[in-house]
């Protein structure tokens, strides 16, 4: 048997995160409540270390390892860097929230880091097996995180729903994978794509497999009609956890989409194109219209996330490298905006007051004009109004679909984003045009308000200078 030594160096960040997470798990057991900060700092150090490692591995080449089950290409490097940065920011945001609610435990950090590891594996997967492995690692961590507050009934219910539906979606994905394995005889995405290109296999079976897999992927992305879990879970989970599950995993879900559809099933582009059009249009319409009816800001942001998933799909379905780059840009931008949006909910909340009703935002301009201004940036950015970063994300996606002559689809997308603008404007209306019910100013911790302000200003700053990130995304696909 010819055993080839894998190139371990490519997976250094993964191994580092795994090792550190196990280490934190053990260290945390010996820590008292008061020295919990050690866990926090170690978790942050893990992310920083992984960031440095991934950065040093950054290369424009595409390299395979571990018997072709693992790939490192510019897309993987970029997405991993984004995941570290996003999760790092989540940890910064959520520390005081967790501390005030007796959730400041090692479990939160360990589960989140295992989730990060799952995302990394997904992002670098080059085989159905690794893809599924990463996805499950991520999903199981997230189920547990939602249920972290054991005594909270809403959270437990959300976790239960999430778990049941998520398990179902995973099963669908796995079933689809098994069908493809059955027809193509391989789990390796490269080989699968080669076999399909040769065109000697039953197309019908391939399409069946594709459909099942897409169900799983659409669930993870939160695209309509597989979106039912999103509002309930975002609403039910503690806000800190919501912030985590609504941001970084979207990056991984994007990677999942690209790995499966482009790397593996590129030969079926004709088939998946139509399905994605349907998913995108449904997500845009349902997400934007139902968001208008929400009175809870976490649910509103959940539906807004669904519509953003629709936009992300638009980029991918264009089927061009520029379109994939636009989709990736959108995913990264969305995670920055999602961080800030849920960051605002964290900022507004106090112990015993979750600040998740839209009414709570009334008259915020009278109470804390600075935070109201920052929230206005976030809302306009999500609505896609320049000069904020959300506009450029929408622009690059629209450009991608206009360039393949899907002008009707672009028209549908912009009409729904105008409808969507209404509920973002409503938040601004509440903050600026309505009278406040109390006059006390917000008093968030210094750390939290600094992170939040930096995050919101980044949305403006990157809106004025979007060039660098756009170029990076483009380089990941167009060489």
């Amino acid at each position: 048997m010819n055993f080839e030594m894998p190139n371990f160096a490519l997976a250094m960040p993964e191994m580092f995160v795994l090792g550190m997470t196990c280490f934190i798990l053990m260290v945390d057991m010996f820590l008292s409540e008061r020295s919990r900060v050690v866990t926090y700092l170690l978790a942050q150090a893990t992310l920083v270390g992984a960031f440095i490692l991934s950065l040093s591995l950054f290369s424009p080449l595409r390299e395979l390892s571990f018997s072709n089950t693992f790939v490192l290409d510019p897309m993987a490097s970029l997405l991993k860097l984004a995941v570290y940065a996003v999760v790092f920011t989540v940890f910064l945001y959520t520390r005081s929230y967790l501390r005030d609610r007796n959730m400041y435990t090692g479990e939160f950090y360990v589960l989140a880091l295992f989730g990060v590891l799952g995302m990394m594996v997904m992002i670098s997967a080059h085989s159905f097996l690794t893809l599924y492995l990463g996805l499950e690692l991520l999903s199981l961590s997230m189920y547990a995180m939602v249920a972290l507050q054991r005594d909270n009934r809403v959270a437990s219910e959300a976790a239960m729903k999430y778990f049941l539906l998520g398990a179902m979606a995973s099963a669908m994905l796995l079933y689809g994978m098994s069908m493809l394995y059955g027809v193509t005889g391989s789990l390796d995405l490269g080989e699968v794509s080669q076999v399909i290109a040769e065109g000697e296999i039953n197309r019908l079976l391939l399409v069946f497999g594709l459909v099942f897999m897409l169900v799983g992927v659409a669930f993870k992305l939160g695209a309509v009609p597989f979106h039912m879990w999103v509002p309930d879970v975002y609403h039910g989970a503690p806000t800190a956890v919501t912030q985590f599950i609504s941001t970084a995993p979207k990056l991984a879900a994007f990677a999942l989409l690209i790995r499966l559809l482009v790397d593996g099933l590129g030969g079926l582009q004709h088939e998946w194109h139509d399905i994605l059009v349907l998913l995108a249009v449904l997500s845009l319409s349902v997400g934007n219209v139902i968001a208008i009816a929400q009175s809870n800001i976490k649910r509103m942001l959940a539906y807004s996330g669904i519509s953003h998933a629709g936009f992300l799909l638009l980029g991918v379905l264009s089927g061009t490298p520029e379109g994939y780059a636009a989709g990736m840009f959108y995913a990264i931008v969305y995670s920055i905006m999602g961080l800030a949006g849920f960051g605002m909910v964290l900022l507004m909340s106090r112990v015993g007051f979750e600040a998740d009703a839209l009414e709570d935002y009334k008259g915020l301009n009278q109470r804390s004009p600075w935070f109201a201004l920052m929230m206005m940036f976030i809302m306009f950015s999500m609505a896609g109004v320049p000069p904020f970063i959300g506009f450029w994300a929408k622009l690059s996606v629209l450009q991608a679909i206009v360039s393949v002559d899907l002008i009707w689809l672009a028209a549908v997308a912009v009409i729904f984003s105008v409808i969507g603008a209404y509920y973002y404007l409503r938040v601004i209306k509440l903050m600026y045009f309505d009278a406040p019910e109390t006059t006390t100013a917000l008093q968030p911790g210094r750390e939290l308000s600094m992170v939040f302000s930096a995050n919101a200003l980044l949305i403006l700053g990157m809106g004025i200078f979007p060039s660098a990130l756009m170029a990076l995304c483009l380089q990941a696909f167009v060489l």
Partner: protein
Amino acid sequence: MFADLPILSLLIWVPIIGGLLVMLAGSGRSGLEAKVLALLVSLLTFAISLPLFFGFDSSTAAMQFNEFKPWIAAFGINYHLGVDGISMPLIVLTTFTTVLVVIAGWEVIKNKPAQYMAAFLIMEGLMIGVFSALDAMLFYVFWEAMLIPMFIVIGIWGGDNRVYATIKFFLYTFLGSVFMLIALLWLYGQADSFAILDFHALPISATAQIWIFLAFLVAFAVKVPMWPVHTWLPDAHVQAPTGGSVILAAIMLKLGAYGFLRFSLPITPDASQSLDWLMIGLSLIAIAYIGFVALVQRDMKKLIAYSSIAHMGFVTLGFFIPWMIAANNGGSFAGAAMGISGGMVQMIAHGFVSAAMFLCVGVMYDRMHSREINDYGGVVHVMPKFAGFMVLFAMANAGLPSTAGFVGEFMVILAAFKANFWIAFVAATTLILGAAYTLWMVKRVIYGEIVNEKVAALKDINAREFLILAVLAFMVLLLGVWPAPLLEVMDLTVQQLVEHISVSKIPAGAM
């Protein structure tokens, strides 16, 4: 002397950065520091715009004061600024009006004056950005960003029904402009560049031109606004604070008309030709029908808002008349330039006149807190100075010769006569209608017996108000008796535009 300074960039960024500083300075209760700072910033911006006017070279139709920096390499988007005879006067109008708005809001705005002033300054910078952008995406960014401060201004400082009005305003204009975005992206795909001048030179098939024209039409018609997408304007005007109404009428409406000149006509001349009946028809409806609507208004601001729509009808009529003139004169475009220049003059004149009219209503509203015509009567007995100004501006609004309102209307009607008698006939009804609705309002508000005690207790205008109205009165008369400098500035640019649109852009061999 000024050639080295990036004047256009200064004009955009001085008010924006100044506005941010004003917002930060506004912690004080009276906001006096913020107001003084805002006044200084607006005066400084106006001063910077003067070299633009006096240093402008009217012997060329090319873009002047160019600035070019790569911005977003991935899409070939550049920070490219420049002005020609069409955009330069509008920029000066913007800087001029903003000074007036800042002074007009001085004592009146009690609630968060710093944010109010800051919003107007930021808006000023963004509007100048729209007028000077030569890159389509840069144009679009300014175009959309401008909605944000206006949304806030109407929403915070507006009247009772302000929330409805401001959300309607935002969504209407947002809906209009997203279609333009798609058209721009399509053009980018063809030209591989976002430079507006490249779009001008791009050959486009007839069908594509029609679609692009319609996409632009949605965006610009909402902004102008043209009938039937004008319904946001009366709401927004009535609810907006005085300053907001002034900026809306004097400048924001001009953005739509400017869009026609910068985008629709030169990029899709053939579609403009084949759809000119539509544009002329809508313009005539705006002039005649909206004139009648204005006649029956009871709210002064609403009346002026409708009269704005009718006046903007003249602008669009002037812009889209050239082909009719050519058809009527054996293909010669002689006289077409007069229609377009007339529309331009009308834009500038309307900027002064409508600003003055809204300020006059503002003066009365600040004292009486009512805009209803029925609540007034006999104002001349208690406010003689004010009444003098109001009557002058009303005359200008009605298009009396030797005021600014006359020049543009007259030029457009003359051009229309060259095209078709009946078009000119309908357009000329404005001379009667405009006089009717404006002067009737003046009669009821200013003259007659003093109707109630509140009117009897009115105090005449103070020095601040006198200053604003006097400056505007001077401009209205100056433009009325001596429009030559303005016409001279835009002459070559308009000539070049007419030449450009007289040549078909449909690629040879394609239909």
